[in-house]
């Protein structure tokens, strides 16, 4: 509960560590205070070392108000032709006010998977949930959506 992921880790750890199958036990042991609410760009910059661009190509669909923080529905849609030359590589979902900020990273494959996915997540408190997409040219696109939960789903 009290623990928070470090904000100093590189984009590489955030976006690719799990690919190697080594999601961080270690990071869970490090502490830091949560970032200020609404300071999404700054958070992503600190996590990745890159400045994300707010984009309406990214759609993060979540209920504005949900009774429990335990199983909040989430749908992600990215406008992309998914060709070799123009596609989205991966999208990370972040919950800055959760004890552990990272929620999930979805990896897409051009011509094989569509950039459209639904799942259910835990939220500790009302907050902006962020989605950060890494495009094939390395640029980061970002969007955020406010979700108000009545109960803490992270305990």
């Amino acid at each position, binding site marked *: *509960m009290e*623990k928070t992921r470090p904000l100093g880790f590189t984009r590489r750890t955030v976006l690719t560590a*799990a*690919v190697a*199958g080594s*999601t961080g*036990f270690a990071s*869970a042991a490090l502490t830091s205070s949560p970032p200020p609410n609404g300071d999404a760009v700054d958070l992503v910059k600190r996590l990745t070392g890159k400045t994300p661009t707010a984009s309406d190509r990214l759609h993060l669909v979540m209920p504005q108000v949900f009774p429990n923080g*335990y*199983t*909040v529905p989430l749908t992600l849609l990215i406008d992309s032709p998914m060709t070799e030359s123009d596609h989205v590589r991966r999208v990370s979902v972040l*919950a800055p006010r*959760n*004890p*552990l900020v*990272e*929620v*999930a*990273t*979805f*990896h*897409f*494959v051009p*011509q*094989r*998977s*569509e950039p*459209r*996915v*639904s*799942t*259910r*997540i*835990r*939220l500790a408190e009302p907050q902006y949930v962020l989605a950060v997409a890494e495009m094939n040219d390395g640029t980061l696109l970002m969007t955020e959506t406010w979700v108000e939960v009545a109960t803490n*789903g*992270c*305990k």
Partner: protein
Amino acid sequence: MFTPAPRVQVPSAAANGEVFPVKTLISHQMETGLRHDDQGNAIPRKILNKFICRHNDVVVFSVDLHEAIAANPFIEFYLRATESGRLEFVWEEDGGGIYVLEHHLTVA
């Protein structure tokens, strides 16, 4: 002993290049490592940390799952296929556990 029950919904056949939905669900507590038992001891983290979908051994979609994924993880995604073959769904658990489902897809 407890065995997570993975379930997948996927069509048996799809047209060449057509987008089709895949829904997956697996019974799993997704213990976050953030909780304590009634003696105050931390309950160790045990989550499914990775989901992979392969088509004929090629990864076509995958997810890194963190603690904030809800218990009984549900993932719905969309694939496109140009050849028939084996779809493989794999969940990897902390500690090395692996849960696998396979499905044959006919592409016409």
